[in-house]
């Protein structure tokens, strides 16, 4: 008979694992991916596959051959980074930018900090921002390729709503149908096409208890509040709260990038502070910055404050006086 196992307690474990959590996030991204593939066609599919595949390959290679300390590759996490990176790019991006983005995301932003769980900055956002400042032309070429459905819109060279605001002022989007934009908003990054699809995925994450709602909620509320105040003061110069909520990458960033475990605070209240700061920076960049969109920069900036936030917010311990 085999020798029996002996170990300290506990003797059982919950079913969830790091991989299963990552799979849950990938599943949650599925609606957004499906919409963008349907709308943008083969090029979207290729970018997603390329991003995920190359990130997995990089993660595996680096953990296997290049780490000083033995590390465990978490392939679903790498695939998730690749998918998020691809979703953060316009569908007409040339394929090689994705590869460069993946190298920056996995190689620089993640592995050089020590791999899984050690990185300070969100890898996918780091990759995107690197591309944005290095290849601004490729990253802001909003040509819409022919999709599987919605063929009537092919080869429309347009700009995103936010760059339109930057160029032509807040008045140019005053008559926009916010609800339609929320449902479907071609142009811009692939993942931004449908706020509804993203929110469906996020509700799935909430139901599976993968993430908590505090970070996205505080981001949305802050964005609404800040833009509301500015809009009330001067509706001519500043866009309104509803527009700012649905436009650009806010929903994608708030629900899927800002909630990344590794680069967000661990406590609920820390998450709220993180979200408020993030929302504020987003609005400052949108209103006063030279870039039309600021979600990526805001996330990177707030990533830096996470260690400080974690130091400031601790849980209420049992037996140290009731709050």
């Amino acid at each position, binding site marked *: 008979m*085999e020798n*029996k*196992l*002996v*170990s*300290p*307690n*506990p*003797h*059982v*474990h*919950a079913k*969830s*694992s*790091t991989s*299963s*959590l990552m799979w849950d996030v990938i599943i949650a991204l599925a609606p957004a991916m499906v919409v963008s593939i349907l709308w943008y066609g083969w090029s979207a599919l290729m970018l997603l596959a390329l991003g995920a595949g190359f990130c997995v390959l990089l993660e595996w290679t680096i953990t296997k051959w290049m780490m000083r300390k033995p*590390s*465990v590759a*978490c392939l679903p*996490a790498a695939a998730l980074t690749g998918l998020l990176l691809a979703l953060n790019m316009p569908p007409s991006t040339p394929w090689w930018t994705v590869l460069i983005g993946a190298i920056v995301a996995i190689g620089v932003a993640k592995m050089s900090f020590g*791999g*899984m*769980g*050690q990185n300070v900055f969100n890898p996918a956002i780091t990759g995107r921002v690197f591309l944005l400042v290095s290849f601004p032309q490729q990253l802001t070429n909003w040509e819409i390729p022919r999709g599987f459905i919605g063929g009537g819109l092919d080869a429309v060279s347009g700009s995103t709503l936010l760059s339109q605001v930057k160029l032509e002022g807040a008045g140019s989007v005053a008559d926009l149908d916010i609800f339609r934009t929320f449902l479907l908003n071609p142009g811009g990054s692939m993942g931004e096409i449908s706020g509804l699809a993203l929110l469906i995925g996020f509700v799935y994450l909430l139901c599976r208890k993968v993430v908590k709602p505090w970070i996205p909620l505080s981001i949305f509320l802050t964005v609404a509040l800040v833009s509301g105040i500015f809009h009330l003061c001067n509706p001519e110069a500043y866009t309104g709260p509803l527009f700012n909520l649905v436009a650009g990458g806010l929903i994608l960033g708030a629900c899927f990038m800002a909630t990344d*475990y*590794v680069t*967000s605070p*661990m*406590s609920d209240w820390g998450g709220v502070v993180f979200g408020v700061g993030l929302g504020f920076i987003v609005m400052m960049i949108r209103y006063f910055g030279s870039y039309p969109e600021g979600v990526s920069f805001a996330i990177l900036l707030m990533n830096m404050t996470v260690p400080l936030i974690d130091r400031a917010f*601790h*849980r*209420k*311990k*049992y*037996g*140290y*006086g*009731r709050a």
Partner: protein
Amino acid sequence: MSKYTFPIGGIHPNDAKFSKGCAIEVLPIPPVVYVSMAQHLGAPAVPCVAAGDKVKVGTVIGEPAGFISAYIHSPVSGTVKSVGPRKDLAGNNVTHVEITVEGDEWEDGIDLTPDIVKEIPSDRAAVLDKIKKCGVVGLGGATFPAHVKLNPSPDTKADCILINGAECEPYLTSDHRIMIERPEEIVIGAAIMQMVLGGCRCVIAIEDNKPEAIASMKGAVAKLGYRNMEVLTLKKKYPQGGEKQLIDAVLRRQVGSGALPISVGAVVQNVATALAVYEAVQKNRPLITNTMTITGDKLPVSEQHNYLFRIGVPFSFIAEQAGGVPEYAAKIVSGGPMMGKAIANMDATTVKGTSSLLYLSKESTKRKEEGLCIRCARCAESCPMGLEPFLINRVYKAGDLAGMEKASAQDCIECGCCQYSCPANIPLVDNIRMAKGQVMAEIKKRRSNGK
């Protein structure tokens, strides 16, 4: 749906109470028993018999060796064969008394009739003495001598005694069964402890996954009609049966770090302890039996049992009686899957606090490869003490003693919630237990230096 539960942390594992329908059976007596002298928290008892002595069921064979210690009685009648070291379930040497069984003759004065004695004695000192002489210890897991807990220092006052029927550990059903089969005795035992503590309020707390037990206990309380006693339904959540969590769940009070429950006016005793108190006080019967569950995650219900066993019976004998160790068992645990102890030595014997023999399959128990922390904060969210296990783990690995104390490693109750919920399979409890030990030693040293 009950709203009573503890507010901080907690987890919801599958409760897996497969054996809850198995009525309690009496386990046969093996030819030889080995009675451990370290069956309780505190100093091990000193054996007071020698090889060749004749003993009856209930004869004192071990005497307490300090204030926090307990009497140990012979669970069988026969001849003492030897007194000496023997390996316990962890494989460490502990003094055992080996007794060869001859017949089943009980000491005089033990009431073996099934009649229920309802009159509660009023002499507090005599009752406490009886509880002490009968070797009653807390049967909820910690095996703390009951007479010490029921006799708090005069400057503290208990205003509530909680009878713990939460049985929050998955798989275990022995408390469930005694609540169904022997509710009146438990209620009388609870009333006795209530009297000893000066007639305070008495709450029998049961989780809502045991509706039969709740009904049965409510019936007994109504029938016996003791004053100031109620049955309270709790919302199921692990570790509700933890002393501190139960007090918070029922009374909304929190016991301070390093303090005893009595500091907030509460005393917690398990339902099995209440039964033992009843038997000791009303029947003059020492604590030589307890109820245990034989169960497992892949064991067919037909092979699961709830046994009334005598202490000192080897685990291997029990396993044999229950149909042998199943083929699938990769780990055998005594106690629940969250806080129980893995058995390294099946020849070890049952003790007063034994509550189960749990066969876990490899799939459910084998630890998976340790990954890297992804800062998901699940450990912190599940910690019922409001600690941050990831932080304690980190400072422990760095050897930072001050950091461990600041992170309150000493407050850990080792319930296992953090490790259970960690998606990266980090052995948090293993490390935090070490950190706790180091901090406790440091606090003790400081205290003795301060004096």
